[in-house]
């Protein structure tokens, strides 16, 4: 039974309440659900790449272990700690918004952004190392040991600083690095987008847009940020740690 109800033109309540919501709580809940549905698509998006990784790791265990051992575990672990700390500061930013401590909220958001940029900076250092070690696959950046010569025939010998375990081939190592760049590159892209979102949040926070009643945007950017952190939580052991137990 449809009841006829009049829609009044004035909006009661908070100025940020949209006309199609009853109250701020419902609006925040709807926004959260929307962000979660988007995160579902992101999970499936990264999932495809994780599947490719799983498959090739199962097929080429020695090559993957060798390639992984060449990655800098210190930088990787530091990056992991940086991201976890940034997730913490992000959660604190949401908390401070909920309790109305606006200065602490802005500080937390700025800290999160700084930590995110730190992560990206360390990543850039790592990528540069790969470049100097000439381990970028493909022919966009001509390099050995993955240069065009490799595509003709395999070289089952030590190349540059790579220590190949028995059974590893250079072509399969190249496969690892391709997946490494695809996964971390896609992750870094998401971090950059997250940094952009955080910049927006900081700008509006300074202007005092968010308060205990209206903190939906802070919360959903938080959800996005935590998701990017979770992806890295999986990437770190899969990419950096898989072959360490062969090292000695």
């Amino acid at each position, binding site marked *: 039974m449809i009841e006829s109800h009049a829609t009044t033109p004035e909006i009661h309540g908070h100025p940020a309440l949209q006309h199609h919501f009853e109250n701020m709580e419902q609006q925040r809940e709807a926004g959260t659900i929307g962000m979660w549905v988007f995160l579902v698509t992101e*999970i499936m998006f990264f999932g495809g790449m994780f599947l490719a990784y799983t498959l090739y790791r199962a097929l080429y265990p020695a090559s993957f272990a060798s390639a992984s051992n060449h990655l800098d575990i210190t930088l990787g672990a530091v990056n992991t700690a940086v991201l*976890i700390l940034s997730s913490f500061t992000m959660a604190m930013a949401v908390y401070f918004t909920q309790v109305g401590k606006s200065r602490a909220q802005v500080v937390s958001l700025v800290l999160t952004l700084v930590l995110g940029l730190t992560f990206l900076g360390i990543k850039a250092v790592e990528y540069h190392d790969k470049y100097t070690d000439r381990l970028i696959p493909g022919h966009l950046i001509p390099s050995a040991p993955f240069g065009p010569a490799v595509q003709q025939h395999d070289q089952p010998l030590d190349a540059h600083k790579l220590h190949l375990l028995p059974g590893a081939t250079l072509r399969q190592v190249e496969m690892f690095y391709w997946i490494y760049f695809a996964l971390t590159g896609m992750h870094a892209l998401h971090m950059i987008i997250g940094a952009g979102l955080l910049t927006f949040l900081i700008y509006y926070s300074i202007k005092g847009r968010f308060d205990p009643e209206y903190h939906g945007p802070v919360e959903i950017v938080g959800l996005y940020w*935590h998701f990017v952190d979770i992806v890295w939580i999986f990437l770190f052991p899969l990419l950096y740690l898989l072959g360490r*137990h062969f090292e000695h």
Partner: protein
Amino acid sequence: MSEHIVPVRIYVMIFLALLVGTALTVVAAYIDFPWQFNAIVAMTIAVGKATLVVLYFMHVRYSTRLIWVIVASAMFWMALLFSFTLADYFSRDWLSIGY
């Protein structure tokens, strides 16, 4: 407002737990476990850390059932993609008919 505000000490505890997990997974990586246990240990720790982030930092523990369903279905669908595809690859050797 009926929203649940998570106390700060919970956030701090989860943060410390995540750091411990990271240290643990690095240490475990250097220990040579038999068979595939290295991967299993690493993934268990990673799943544990991710669960903590999802439940507490992302507030799913305090969220409505609808959000639980959404999160669970994402996990389930990823599991679908993985299990069926890997089932193909791992069962190829069972029947030696030429490929």
